[in-house]
């Protein structure tokens, strides 16, 4: 990607931040484009929040460079950055009304008082809070507080809106609604959104592109589909959704197809991935919903097949969740649609054949 291109909103180059002995952010380089919804995904302690605080200006990098809207941010305090942050627990000023909270940033900018009112009203309208302007934050529900925090940041028309786990404090139902609403809002205002989250579903649903971080490092960056279908490492594969994996060694590479020898099982096939040589240790990974379970040993179009024993069968509404034991004693998960009625279901203790198509597997260097 071209880092100097004019459509870059944020450029981070080799940014490192230490907290005492631990490296919170380790040589992080990434470019965020103007107007995109960018998510930073990672488990707690992955450095994603520190990254956000570096962008907001609450922390200064130990080394490396941050450029926002073409301006280097070295030594620029938070109050002079073209970004606004929606805090994790919203950090609404408890002694100010909703309207006073939203007006705060405009006041600080020195906007004349008569002009502030309409802007505030418009921002509250946008987040559907018109009529609640005179409430105190403590008199609002969690979802409403969240929308005040959004309005308070967006009213300033920042070049970039930073969101720190914006939906983390909401209950599940509200979270699903807000995912859609937040995305729609971003498309409407056209501002770059950078959203930090530990929830992979949230990141996949909302973002145009996302970055996966772990231990302060950037592991992979791409569209949700790229990350989901072609994880670049075992960590990404497991963090983005439950994956089954088999450790083995490369036996042969045949153009698009690599054959892997797995101890106790035999040969399995997977699409080739670059940079692997014969004999290299690899992981063959495949998602539970891509697996097929059958009583019939015929290969019927599936290039891979393993004889397994069903360890556990769990009814889960529209799907059956199976835990199956492989010959090498690994346990895999399989998810099979329940459409065909009870006759085809498996029960614990039964033998079965686990099958999948080569193209559905992902090969990862170990």
């Amino acid at each position, binding site marked *: 990607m071209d880092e100097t291109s004019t459509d870059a909103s944020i450029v981070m180059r080799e940014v490192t931040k230490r907290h005492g002995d631990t490296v919170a952010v380790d040589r992080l380089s990434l470019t965020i484009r103007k107007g995109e919804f960018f998510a930073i995904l990672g488990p707690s302690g992955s450095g994603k929040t520190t990254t956000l605080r570096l962008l907001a200006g609450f922390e200064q990098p130990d080394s490396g460079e941050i450029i926002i809207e073409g301006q280097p941010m070295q030594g620029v*305090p*938070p*109050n002079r950055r073209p970004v606004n942050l929606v*805090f994790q*627990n919203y950090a609404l000023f408890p002694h100010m009304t909703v309207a006073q909270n939203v007006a*705060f*940033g405009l006041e*600080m900018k020195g906007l004349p008082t008569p002009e502030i009112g309409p802007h505030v009203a418009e921002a509250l309208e946008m987040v559907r809070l018109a009529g609640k302007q005179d409430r105190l934050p403590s008199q609002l529900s969690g979802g409403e507080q969240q929308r005040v925090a959004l309005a308070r940041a967006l009213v300033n028309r920042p070049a970039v809106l930073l969101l720190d786990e914006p939906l983390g404090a909401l209950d599940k139902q509200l979270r699903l609604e807000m995912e859609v609403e937040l995305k729609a809002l971003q498309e409407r205002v056209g501002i770059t959104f950078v959203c930090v989250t530990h929830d992979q579903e949230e990141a996949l649903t909302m973002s145009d592109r996302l970055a996966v971080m772990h231990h302060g490092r950037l592991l992979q960056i791409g569209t949700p589909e790229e990350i989901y279908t072609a994880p670049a490492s075992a960590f990404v594969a497991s963090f983005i959704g439950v994956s089954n994996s088999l450790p083995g060694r490369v036996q042969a590479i045949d153009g698009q197809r690599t054959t892997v020898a797995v101890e106790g099982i035999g040969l399995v096939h997977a699409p080739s991935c670059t940079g692997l040589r014969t004999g290299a240790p690899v992981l063959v990974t495949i998602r539970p919903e891509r697996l097929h379970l059958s009583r019939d040993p015929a290969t019927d179009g599936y290039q891979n097949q393993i004889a397994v024993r069903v360890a556990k069968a769990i009814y889960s509404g529209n799907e059956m969740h199976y835990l199956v034991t492989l010959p090498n004693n690994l346990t895999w998960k399989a998810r099979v649609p329940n459409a065909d009625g009870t006759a085809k279901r498996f029960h614990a203790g039964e033998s079965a054949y686990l099958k999948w198509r080569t193209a559905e597997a992902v090969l990862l260097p170990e």
Partner: protein
Amino acid sequence: MKTRSWLVAASFADLLFLYLPIAILVVFSFNASKLSARWQGFSLEWYAKLFTDQALLSATVNSLIVATVSTVLAGALGVLTAVALERQPFRWQGAFEVLLLMPIVIPEIMMGVAMLLFFVMIKLPLSLLTMIIAHTIFNFPVVALIVRARLRKLDPRLEEAASDLGATPWVAFKRVTLPLLMPGIVGALLMAFTLSLDDFIISFFTAGVGSTTLPIKVYGMLKSAVTPEVNALSAILVLVSMGLVAVATWVQRK
């Protein structure tokens, strides 16, 4: 879970122990008898006497002057201290914090002695001024402690949010931190005012001729002859204290 009844009984006994003596004082302040331990009918005579006692009135005025001035000074110094300790770490901070706690922990008698010695040595005549200085010294660490505790409880993200919305550190402090600290500050000032108004020992050592305060006057009355007048005065002082606590509690709740 039900709290055991003997615990409740013991608590009730505690409260009785705390309040019965004061209640007796107040009741007997309305006693007509000069021999104050026997009830001889209701009277407001002793209250009337209080309000015509010139020495008592001037002592009250002195007390109010000392309490007001020292509270204002203690408030300013205390808030500065709290903010500096929490937001602006400096060299020797540990040593300073120990020194700051000393006026609170050392016995009042020691503080009185030290102040007396100091004022005599620098040849500053004992007066309202010396008393104000002494009261400021024992009060400002109290204010600093209370305000600092409040400051610590504030969510640091609120100041960050202000700063993110374009406020400079000072504006963020003025617009966000200070208003949120205000109940704590007012509570601390009321506390300081009360401590100053009630102080006897340190005032006793630092008061000069003609700068007698109310507690010094009360002490004199107790040391000479106990008259029902003292009961009346005590009743009024109890009422004032209750009023101050009520205000302080109400302010802190907000």
